[in-house]
């Protein structure tokens, strides 16, 4: 936790203003762990001792700071989603109907477009291409594939919702807004594929009593998805 509480020298914030936010994010982790199906949150306190290197190096990829960090965070998630749906279309599950294939191909294309957009926008500040690890997903089974898709889409929605307030540039915030609603459309359609005509598309399992989607901080999202990527992604300075 030390680095999280370290005062920033360039942002103009005092320590007293930054630490409560981080502490809160950390504490919130306890509440979201199960809903995202993550395994453990033990590394929430783990911190990379080396100074972050934007772009990453070896098996550790640091997302960087400020808005660039947030955009790299989005780029990392879009890389995972694009790789996942590419695999789904390359090796369709048993019994995939034409209608299902059309939907999943559409989503694949959207995620590839998001990925390539962030890569181009970030230019030389972009992190490297990540190596996905989907060993835990049985791509031959519809239930497994749609279950994973649901997890990725709900996670994407919560991630963008939680990252919005970290952005300092209005243009970047609008871009995130343009993408998050498309992720929410995906989430709804995938959930309706799993349980057609039910309330699950915006189910009580994911929304709160105010009828709101989740908004989750980067550290918690990175923990939730770490089993799906071979590199270790660090995002301690995202948005700072």
């Amino acid at each position, binding site marked *: 936790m030390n680095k999280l509480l370290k005062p920033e020298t360039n942002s103009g914030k005092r320590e007293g203003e930054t630490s409560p936010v981080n502490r809160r994010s950390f504490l919130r982790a306890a509440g979201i762990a199960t809903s995202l199906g993550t395994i453990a949150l033990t590394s929430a306190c783990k911190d990379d001792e080396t100074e972050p290197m934007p772009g990453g190096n070896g098996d550790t990829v640091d997302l960087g700071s400020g808005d660039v960090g947030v955009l790299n965070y989005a780029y990392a998630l879009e890389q995972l989603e694009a790789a996942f749906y590419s695999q789904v279309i390359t090796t369709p599950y048993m019994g995939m109907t034409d209608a299902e294939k059309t939907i999943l191909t559409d989503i694949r294309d959207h995620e590839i477009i*998001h990925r390539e957009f962030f890569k181009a926008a970030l230019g030389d500040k972009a992190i490297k291409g990540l190596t996905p690890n989907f060993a835990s997903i049985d791509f031959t089974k519809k239930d497994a594939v749609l279950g994973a898709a649901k997890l990725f889409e709900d996670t994407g929605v919560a991630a963008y919702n939680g990252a919005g307030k970290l952005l300092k540039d209005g*243009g970047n915030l609008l871009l995130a807004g343009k993408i998050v609603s498309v992720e929410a459309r995906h989430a709804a359609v995938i959930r309706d594929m799993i349980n057609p005509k039910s309330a699950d598309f915006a189910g009580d399992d994911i929304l709160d009593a105010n*009828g709101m989607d989740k908004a989750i901080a980067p550290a918690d999202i990175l923990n939730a998805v770490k089993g799906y990527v071979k590199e270790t992604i660090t995002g301690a300075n995202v948005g700072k």
Partner: protein
Amino acid sequence: MDIFKIIDNFQKIDGDALGRLEYATRRHFMSKVGSKLATVAVPTVFASIVNKAFAQSAGAIDVLNYALTLEYLEDEFYKGGNAAAGLIPATDKTIFTQIGKHETQHVAFLVKALGTKAIAKPTFDFKYNGAFADVFTNYKTFVTVSSALEDTGVRAYKGQAGALIGDPQILEYALQVHSVEARHAAVVRRLAASVTGNAAMKGWITGKEGAVPAIYAGEDNLTQGGKDLKGLASKTDAAISEAFDEPLTKEAVLAIAGPFIKA
């Protein structure tokens, strides 16, 4: 690179108010951590925090009352539809009951958050000057209007994100509602496609594809972050337009919603 330019005037409107907000939020979470009480107590506590923040930001009050106007509209629309005998087929009832529940929750949250500053519910007429005269008797019309309202809601919230950049917690609430409207929109668009026999209408917006043209103006945009994305990753214009939803200004939204509002 344009999109990385940090704009100084998007700094916090009132640093002090934010400090108080963070302090109150932190205290709440510190006292509730590890307890299931947290999820139960959050709405009330958040509403009171939002109230304090509103006192400092007139801009946020405007945005949230604008959101409340649209949520009142949606809430009353689904109350009418769900109550109309024989309108919604049994197979689709669960979907519209769930959507209606959320709109009621959104209204309640906003009214509570705004407190005495909340506007009163307007008087609505869902016949839209006669254009949707059979909205509560013809399922096709009902689904069409529903899809239009949800997509408009998504565009409306998106259009206000920038105005809330100085109010981080309120921005986050707005985003949390925004994505729910998008979930609604996707499912209702697919229902509308099926009921009206329009196969071109998907859960996402291809070009300007939607029930009511004025609502989809600009949705076919291919330029993002100052870059023309045409041909990106060898994908079609259709796919690129689907991958990004577009905002609408408050003026454009109120022009669309205006005929629903009688007083």
